[in-house]
């Protein structure tokens, strides 16, 4: 039984009407088809021209083996997985905060990750032996720890997960304060500024199979529990009081969702830096083109986000070949265009 029909018997389906179930699957198929196309394109686009790449595919040698299967393919797959995690995080954030324009960095995770990276970069240069281990931890782990730490700080500041409004407010406070601390630290060592900028603008350039495997594992770890909780997310759409009266434990639900959100966001930020807009646009786009339940959204948003980031990665590699645009700049442009389009349609319809 497909996901769309999973919770409905024949009679229920008759009640529901077939139109809802029927649009979801074709949409999903189209999205996955686009993903395959983009992956294929990723194999062919890079610093060598298309002709050379196709020649490689026909008659592989040692160099093509490295470039195609150890550089381009893991990068494409990793970009998809990172985009999927961001899309999933965005879907969870938008449902948790009942805000169609929420993004997964809402609770200060972006600022926390930036601070973690700054500290680890500074510790590499620092002569304080006590902090040398921080430098050894690596940028990836430092970003992860920073992001998780920031969310934990937000939850502590809002005194638990009892109220969504206080969580949001605490998230804003944490984001501002950690940003300020990061800026202060950067002033002391301007050499790290360029590396920080790379992180802040997002970079898929160094995704390898190990990173892709990590992203894939985390995607699975976040996706399965999220699907299990999707009924609760549906109930949340009726309003928090109604959801509570239906028998849901709201603090428990919020805590679980926060854990999933922070895991998804922190892992992605560690691997590809701060890539914006994908987490916002993917679930929003799904909702605009389809009308879906939470369960379907939790499937469609990652698929959409993965394709988006893959496309952005492709553009970043291709636009000023063989130099590269930071992938966060490309997603910002794409995201900005999408929002402008939304605005234009809204004012035209009004």
């Amino acid at each position, binding site marked *: 039984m497909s996901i769309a029909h999973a919770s409905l018997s024949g009679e229920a389906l008759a009640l529901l009407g077939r139109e809802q179930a029927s649009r979801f699957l074709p949409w999903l198929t189209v999205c996955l088809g686009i993903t395959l196309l983009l992956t294929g394109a990723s194999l062919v686009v*890079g*610093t*060598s021209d298309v002709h050379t790449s196709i020649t490689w595919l026909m008659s592989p040698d*040692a*160099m093509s083996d*490295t*470039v195609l299967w*150890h*550089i*381009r393919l*893991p*990068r494409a797959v990793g970009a998809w997985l990172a985009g999927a995690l961001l899309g999933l995080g965005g879907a969870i954030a938008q449902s948790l905060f009942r805000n169609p324009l929420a993004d997964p960095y809402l609770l200060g995770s972006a600022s926390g990750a930036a601070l973690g990276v700054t500290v680890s970069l500074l510790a*590499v*240069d620092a002569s304080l032996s006590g902090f040398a281990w921080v*430098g050894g931890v690596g940028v990836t782990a430092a970003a992860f720890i920073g992001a998780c730490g920031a969310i934990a700080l937000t939850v502590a500041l809002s005194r638990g997960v009892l109220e969504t409004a206080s969580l949001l407010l605490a998230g804003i406070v944490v984001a501002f304060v950690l940003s300020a601390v990061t800026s202060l630290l950067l002033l002391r060592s*301007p*050499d790290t500024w*360029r*590396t920080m900028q*790379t992180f802040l603008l997002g*970079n898929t*350039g*160094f*995704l*390898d*199979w190990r990173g892709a495997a990590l992203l894939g594992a985390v995607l699975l770890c976040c996706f399965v529990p999220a699907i299990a909780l999707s009924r609760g997310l549906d109930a949340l759409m009726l309003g928090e009081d109604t959801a509570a009266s239906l028998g849901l434990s709201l603090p428990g639900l919020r805590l679980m969702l926060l854990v999933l959100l922070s895991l998804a966001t922190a892992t992605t930020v560690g691997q590809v830096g701060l890539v914006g807009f994908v987490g916002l646009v993917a679930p929003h786009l799904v909702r605009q083109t389809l009308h879906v339940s939470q369960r379907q959204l939790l499937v469609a948003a990652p698929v959409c986000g993965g394709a988006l980031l893959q496309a952005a990665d492709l553009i970043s*590699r291709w636009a000023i*070949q*063989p*130099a*590269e*645009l*930071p992938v966060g700049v490309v997603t910002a442009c794409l995201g900005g265009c999408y929002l402008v389009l939304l605005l234009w349609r809204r004012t035209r319809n009004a």
Partner: protein
Amino acid sequence: MKGFTSRATAVALAVLAHVALAAANPIVLHDALQREVRFARPPERIITLLPSLTEMVCALDACGRLVATDRFSNFPASVRTLPKAGGLDDAQIELIVSLKPDVVLLSHVARLTDRLQELGVVNFVIETETYADIGRAADTIGAMLGSPQRAAALRRAMLSAVDEVARQSQRALGARSPLVYYEVDAAPYAAGPQSFIGTLLARLGARNIVTAELGAFPALNPEYVVLHDPDVIFASPADAGNLGRRPGWDRIRAVREHRVCAFSADVRDTIVRPGPRVAEGMQAIADCLDRVAP
């Protein structure tokens, strides 16, 4: 007696004339923005906002005239105790003005030069981007300080030192012409042939994997480095050990055979600053090249 008197008079007249000439002919220079700047006499109180300019002023024996530098100037050691006026982007205007400098030497930052102009502080923009700028800067600052001969001597010394290093390096390299990738930052940002570093590498006889049309400091696709398989890689000490972890980079000859050069921060300063120590920086690169080039 009559001859002595006439000679003394002639000398006195000559001195007077010289003084008068000096008073009547102030030093007129045009800075990089084509602004005309007049100095009645050589400046006694100088502030420099660029490390290369600091080093140039000190190389012209005018270190004692410096009253403040920017926060990054650290050579020679005597300037470390001077007050620091921030960087180019966040210069401390108040400090600069309170020190009443005769001139502020800097590179072009529009807001800063405008502000100093408004406040009546004489500022002089000197470009220090390319290799050719080094000689020009020496001449300009020498003229400003009233010692053009010393500047000319410095310029000749710098150029001959560079030529010497280049010659020795090419002799040491012999038939080898190593393909080099100079990584400025971990994005990866590379030094292209038009950059200052790129010029140095070219003079030493190395070939750059970056081509001229990519610009001075392009952000490369890491795949590009793998495809071009450089013989020697220059990286920062933090990244040098981890190059092999980047996907596909363990294939690069330079990584496999450990032909990686990493310089400490002090040595890096001599390489990236287009100043009087350019020959030292070049020597560091040349030594490493000679050591690791295949």
